């Protein structure tokens, strides 16, 4: 026995002292950067021939994965070999748990509230000054990011730390309803209250995620206030809206519980991923959805020859961002790792690469282009613009995103150079979801991260919504349960007793008399 333990012990010691093999042991001056991104959230190449995006400024085509192409690009421009160790996560919470349980990454792309949480916990490395240098031609991010995104990141902070110092926006969007226009009226779907509308009983899905469901609920229960003229015309409208949509007071959470319990009995299900497919196969009519996934579902529906539309409720919508942040745990003091991470962000921000990502994943890039090429607006034009002989067309102004300003006298206005002529239906289709117009982003609020007390309150509320409350069991139910328990127990006892009886039986046999042969 002792020997076994000794052997075991030595094996364990041996295993624990073997250093983990480096990714390419032969070449020691290759720098490894560990990147963790959402699943299917980057162009992985391998496009078909006919998928070429032929823009005026040249063709765009995804042959290999962007993170692989980066390795050569970095060597050409910075003279150092890097290797990108690319991995994925499924939810922000999963990423957070991975980081807390000891996984090490250098660069990750969580959503804004998780960035705020990581920032508040002092786990992020700020960008170097060079990252913000617009003179440097390799700094594609700062040279090409949309002014709308840039100013949002410059004006949002947590504990006095502004987002833009730590995070570079990757993708962004809003939340709304994907719906089937043949069965659902545009009016019904323009309010969050559709979730308790009995006309669509068991034909809508909510997100299986407390934050999205809570936001929708706040929009519904605060609807009267949010739609009132007083509130809308308040000079501090945006501040007040943000405050209302981040309300976690006990009374509000209580109200949300009542609403969500009602909604749970009215909707088809809480889904994480099945919603898009169920919309396309027609199982449900309304689906609470992020704008990028809505684009994907609308494309799918078109292939099946029917139409899905996207609507953003009138009350307000959730403006969300996914952004690249560098982690202290991974980067440490390594200046060369930091340089490579920043270069990776810049590489993804090059307008042609941003187009490849948008084409591949359906979400909206933070990049507007301009300084280093007009591929973004050309791509939108290429995808959505009306044919010349098309009759029912409208003008669609994207100035706010491309050269507008959030603040000052001409807030929200662009130069008028970014107006597209698009088919009328695109005002509620893919274009509307991918690049919502100014009036939609105007009624949007960012949902911040909740402190641990508020978080506990909201999670408890969510558990109340999802769990079967023992108080709901009626007298007949208890009788049935008791009966079942009695039957099971008595069956077990009966079997035991019988066994015992069998064992205790004494068999008296006559001794065998074997006749001996004479």
């Amino acid at each position, binding site marked *: 026995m002792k020997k076994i333990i000794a052997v*075991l012990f030595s094996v364990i010691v041996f295993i624990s002292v073997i250093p983990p093999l480096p990714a390419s042991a032969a070449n020691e001056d290759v720098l490894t950067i560990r990147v963790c991104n959402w699943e299917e959230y980057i162009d992985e190449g391998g496009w078909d021939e006919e998928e070429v995006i032929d823009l005026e400024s040249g063709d765009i085509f995804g042959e290999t994965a962007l993170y692989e192409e980066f390795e050569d690009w970095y060597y050409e421009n910075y003279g150092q070999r890097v290797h990108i160790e690319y991995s994925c996560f499924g939810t922000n919470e999963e990423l957070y748990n991975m980081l807390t349980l000891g996984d090490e990454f250098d660069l990750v792309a969580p959503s804004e509230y998780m960035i705020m949480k990581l920032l508040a916990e002092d786990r992020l490395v700020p960008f170097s000054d060079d990252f913000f240098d617009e003179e440097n031609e390799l700094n594609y991010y700062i040279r090409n990011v949309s002014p709308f995104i840039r100013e949002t990141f410059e004006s949002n902070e947590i504990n006095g730390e502004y987002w833009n110092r730590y995070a570079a926006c990757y993708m962004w969007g809003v939340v709304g309803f994907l719906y089937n226009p043949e069965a659902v009226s545009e009016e019904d779907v323009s309010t969050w209250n559709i979730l308790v509308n009995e006309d669509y009983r068991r034909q809508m899905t909510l997100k299986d995620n407390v934050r999205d469901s809570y936001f929708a609920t706040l929009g519904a229960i605060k609807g009267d206030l949010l739609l009132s003229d007083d509130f809308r015309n308040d000079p501090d409208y945006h501040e007040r809206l943000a405050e209302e949509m981040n309300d976690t007071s006990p009374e509000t959470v209580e109200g949300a519980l009542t609403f969500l319990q009602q909604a749970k009995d009215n909707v088809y299900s809480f889904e994480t991923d099945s919603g898009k497919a169920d919309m396309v196969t027609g199982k449900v009519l309304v689906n609470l959805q992020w704008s990028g996934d809505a684009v994907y579902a609308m494309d799918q529906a078109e292939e099946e020859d029917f139409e899905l539309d996207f609507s953003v409720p009138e009350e307000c919508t959730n403006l969300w961002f996914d952004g690249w942040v560098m982690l202290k745990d991974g980067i440490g003091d390594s200046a060369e790792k930091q340089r490579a991470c920043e270069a990776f962000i810049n590489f993804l921000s090059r307008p042609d690469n941003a187009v490849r990502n948008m084409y591949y994943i359906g979400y909206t890039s933070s990049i507007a282009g301009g300084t280093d090429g007009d591929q973004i607006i050309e791509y939108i034009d290429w995808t959505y613009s009306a044919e010349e002989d098309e009759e029912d067309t409208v003008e669609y102004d994207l100035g706010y995103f491309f050269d507008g300003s959030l603040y000052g006298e001409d807030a929200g206005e662009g130069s008028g150079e970014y107006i597209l002529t698009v088919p009328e239906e695109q005002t509620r289709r893919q274009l509307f979801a991918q690049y919502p117009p100014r009036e939609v982003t105007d009624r949007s609020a960012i949902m911040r991260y909740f402190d641990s007390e508020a978080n506990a309150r909201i999670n408890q509320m969510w558990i109340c919504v999802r769990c*079967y409350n023992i108080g709901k069991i009626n007298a007949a139910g208890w009788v049935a*349960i008791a009966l079942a328990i009695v039957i099971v127990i008595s069956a077990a006892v009966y079997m035991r007793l019988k066994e015992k009886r069998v064992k205790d039986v004494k068999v008296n046999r006559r001794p065998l008399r074997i006749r001996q042969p004479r």
Partner: protein
Amino acid sequence: MKGTFQRKYLGIPYALYLLVFVILPLVVIVSYAFTDSNGKPGIGNLLNFFTDPNTLGTLVYSLVLAFVTTLICLLIAYPVGYLLAMSSIRSKGAILMLMIMPMWINFTLRITALKELLTMFEGNLAFHPFMNSVIGMTYDFLPFMILPIYNQISRIDKSLLEAAADLGADPTQAFIRVMLPLSMPGVISGISMVFLPAMTNYVVLDMLYNSTYIMGSLIGSYFSAYDWHGGSMISLILLIMICLFTLLAGKDESQGNVRGGSVL
């Protein structure tokens, strides 16, 4: 000779596996379960579980769901196992293979297919979440019930039934007094292979649109809310229930004497 290879060394890989993937996680779970978020030891999580009507309700809901699933599996599986084991048809192997064939395919794929089938029959699935969950679980677990019952019955010495008939038992009596007791070990191992997984198999519920939590999804929700302490406690409670159950069932199985000792 000392230092040479001994047969017991063959157990080392498994012992290592046991240590790293069973013992160690267990220690972690226990240590999380009995501490609060500040690391202070206590039984607060335990009390929370048994005082919250939501967690208790989830426990009852899971037990009821698992009970109904097991009962239905048993009602379907026993006759099948019995007929198959007693019949003398030659294509027995083929039929048995048909039964266990679904087990070769990943169950999420199977449930996805089932979802489409059920939608075809019922239309909107969201109106009968409990029933659909039971159907889904039965579909998923039935082979685990059929196999042990079939195995057990086919191992029973058929001459015992002839003996019962010789001694004047009619077929019903022979079945109740001989067949049923002898097949019990198979039934019990079938039950333990269905009942316990059915309490936590929340993927089936998710995929069939049942929005009510069972034990598995409840634990998951604690973890995604970063409450590893509460989640670990629920896992531990579940683990203890499983241990109790296997202790009860296992004892019977070890005494299951196929040759007929317990009939006598």
